[in-house]
């Protein structure tokens, strides 16, 4: 992107990481975010559309489902088909799977209570969307109770074969194993893209880790967006 990218963010009733995301984008990319209220019927052509974390509609019924009924989501679907990049974080990821823009689903954590902690993420350097992040691993916070990624076996195979698995939970040395799977996700999956790799969903929160002591890897995530 030569000139400043146009970044839109959709806010639903109950979203609560919208401000954090807007601030993170401003701090890392020096861009003002274009705010879209959930019932707007038109989203202007954007370079990236973000769906923030939080509890859209209180996460009632199940996380993400009620938000998929908003008018703005129809626009997200339309733009995503045209190749516009769409990134959903946490609740945004849940919304993207619920409206089937991303494969699989996010179910209750294996230990069914809410879990907030800092985790490490291993990056898939063969995934188009994130491969230019200048780090092997990111340390980011997670905070969710429905983050266990699940899909059917054939689908999982496809995700692997097509490099759609963008992030996996790992330990401080980058090892992926059961002990550092915080929520029971298949293959420690923390983030996936669609087949075309223009839509990304992830459970961890890069926007909360911009400039705090010991927690600033989120900036690597945002900075790479400049290069898209």
């Amino acid at each position, binding site marked *: 992107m030569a000139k400043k990218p146009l970044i839109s963010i959709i806010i639903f*009733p109950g979203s609560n990481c919208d401000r*954090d995301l807007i601030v993170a984008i401003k701090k890392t990319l020096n861009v003002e975010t274009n705010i879209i209220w959930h019932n707007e019927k038109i989203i202007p052509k954007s370079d990236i559309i973000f769906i923030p974390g939080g509890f859209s509609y209180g996460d009632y019924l199940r996380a993400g489902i009620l938000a998929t009924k908003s008018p703005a989501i129809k626009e997200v679907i339309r733009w995503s088909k045209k190749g516009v990049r769409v990134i959903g974080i946490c609740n945004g990821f849940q919304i993207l799977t619920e409206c089937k823009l991303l494969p699989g689903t996010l179910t209750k954590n294996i230990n069914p209570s*809410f879990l*907030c902690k800092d985790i490490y993420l291993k990056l898939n350097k063969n995934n188009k969307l994130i491969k230019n992040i200048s780090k092997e691993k990111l340390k980011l916070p997670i905070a969710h109770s429905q983050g266990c990624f699940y899909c059917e076996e054939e689908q999982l195979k496809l995700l692997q074969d097509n490099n759609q698995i963008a992030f996996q939970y790992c330990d401080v040395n980058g090892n992926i194993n059961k002990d550092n799977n915080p929520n029971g996700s298949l293959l420690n999956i923390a983030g996936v893209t669609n087949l075309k790799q223009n839509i990304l969903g992830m459970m961890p929160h890069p926007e909360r880790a911009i400039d705090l002591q010991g927690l600033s890897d989120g900036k690597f995530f945002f900075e790479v967006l400049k290069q898209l």
Partner: protein
Amino acid sequence: MKTKITENLIKSHNLSKDEYKLILKILKREPNLLELGIFSVMWSEHCSYKSTKKWLKQLPTKAEWVICGPGENAGIIDIGDNDAIVFKMESHNHPSFIEPYQGAATGVGGILRDIFTMGARPIANINSLRFGDPKNSKTKHLLNGVVSGIGDYGNCIGVPTVGGECFFHKSYNHNILVNAMTVGLVKKEKIFYSSAKGIGFPIIYVGGKTGRDGIHGATMASAEFDEKNKDKRPQVQVGDPFKEKLLLEACLELMSSDAIVAIQDMGAAGLTSSSFEMASKGNCGIELELDKVPQRETKMEPYEIMLSETQERMLMIINPNFKEKTAKVFKKWGLEFSEIGKITDTGIMKIYFKGELKATLPIKPLADAAPEYDRPRTKTLKKKEKTLKDFKTINLKQALIKIMSSPNQSSKEWVFNQYDRSVMGDTVADSQKSDSAIIRIHNTNKAVAITCDCNPLYCNSDPYRGALLAVTETWRNLCASGAMPMAITDNLNFGNPEKREIMFEIVESIKGISEACKKLKYPVVSGNVSLYNETEGKSIYPTPVIGGVGLIKNYKNFGRINLKKNKTIFLIGKTYGHMNQSVYEKEIMEVERGKPPKVDFKEEIKNGLFIRKLIEKNLLEGCHDISDGGLVVCLSEMVINSNIGMEIKVPKTSLSFEEWLFSEDQSRYVIVPKNNEEIEYLASIENISINKLGKAGGKKLIIKNCLEIAIKDLIDINNKWFYDYLS
């Protein structure tokens, strides 16, 4: 169908005979049932503070930086640059015992509303919890429910829950404590108050529809309701954090205009106390039309509408020029709202229902006549206690293991991992990383430090000193985080004030808080009182929980519970070996005896200011105050947090190893300087007691000639209890 006001009815409304006589005098006639209900809640302990008002007045509440002290929905302090911090603590003890999940959740919801009612955006929650003996059959269920209730509510609304306390003791077997505190941020010129203004201005109700939630049980049992509507039993309050989030955003959006003249949340006693207090503060009258109150259930009576405690509701007085704007904002956020009345100049509250006048109450006389008691009190009858020194010695390593794996000293990871601590992106440190939680003031370099504390064993042994120590402990926590302590909120949890010994505890505690606050120039700006925490004559230990708030100039320089390899470890402050009421005596000797430790305020202030200065100048790698469990617990926590070991030598002293390691003398800190000479020099010129303890490094906590334990073992021991207990 006029209900006769019988003696029983009066009694079931918790009104004494004298109080009823006063009602007759004020009204110059008999009240009807609705009016009786209103009197009963307005004069309840909860709303009128009738047992404690006399004493609360003695609390020091002023300082140049105090913008608003007790009396409003929350206290407010000035942190410079036009920013102000709004905070308060509130209890939801009884509802949480009945239904832990909803009770705790709605407790959080209630305190959040108190904060945003004043125009502030909530930026952090903390909580102080007391449960019964873990072996008690109900404890596990209560712990599970309360923690997930607190977590789910705060997580959903998107305010980080960054710290707190969780303490077990059998005195809470039948009365748990759930005290929640919220801290908010507001621009000084955008503070909203509850005092009504504007004759003729409309009163707007917004938020959840009114149901029969939480209507006083005893009152509902009264004759008329019992026979006619068997299914109209009182209901538990259920929290709706999603609605609260909408309410929060809508209120803050509307507050950015000049629409709102006055605003008040509907908390305890719902519409009654909110409307009454607004009118009373503004010296005006009020007219309500109850048909216009949005209702969730059918056939609700005026009595029920006025006394309902449905959550997530607000009352506001609107400048009529902004009616449209107001409607627009509430519609945007999908909130139910309704104009339910207006402000008048009559000084009278008039309540209409279906066109009929149902209640007429003079506001000022009712408020002014609210009872205020000086209840009799006597010193608790306990055996004369003096300091006892004959403690049992056992293997020191075994003692440490037992203490670090005890429910009260165990890592609370199981608890705080259920709380979203990082939302809002300004959590510099939760209370695991520093002695208080540290929240950056958005878009600035400043931060607030927040902590809460109370040691019930200290308070039970000596309510005066115990309360005083709770205040100093929060002050020390703030200093150890590098913050300038500014003000406190308090939550006074006690048994039945009509008992002389309990009243004695209450008064002594308030005196203890006052004394500490005066000495530390650390005023009380808000608080809450929760009485009658007793079952079958057994009262809880006196538990005056203190919530402290301080200011950090530069969020990058804060005190970390941390070690650094090869750096020297120092002890600040004097060790006298006070063991009574300590964790050691409780856990190892299984006794609670003697007096809690003393505080020398000169020493306390000197050490606290010294520590803060070191942190502000970024001269420390790590810092931790010494509290429950003494020096060795403090050192263990530093080892666990940093995953770095240490080797310590006990200095030559007349104290035994036990006293040296486990005593709970006050005003002490452990620090890890970047540069030893500099710190030693600064300490010498300020006449600070400083002792070299040893060095950080290695994979073990080694205290020469006393004990040795691998970090890994220490971590396992410390983590084990909660997971074993709950799985």
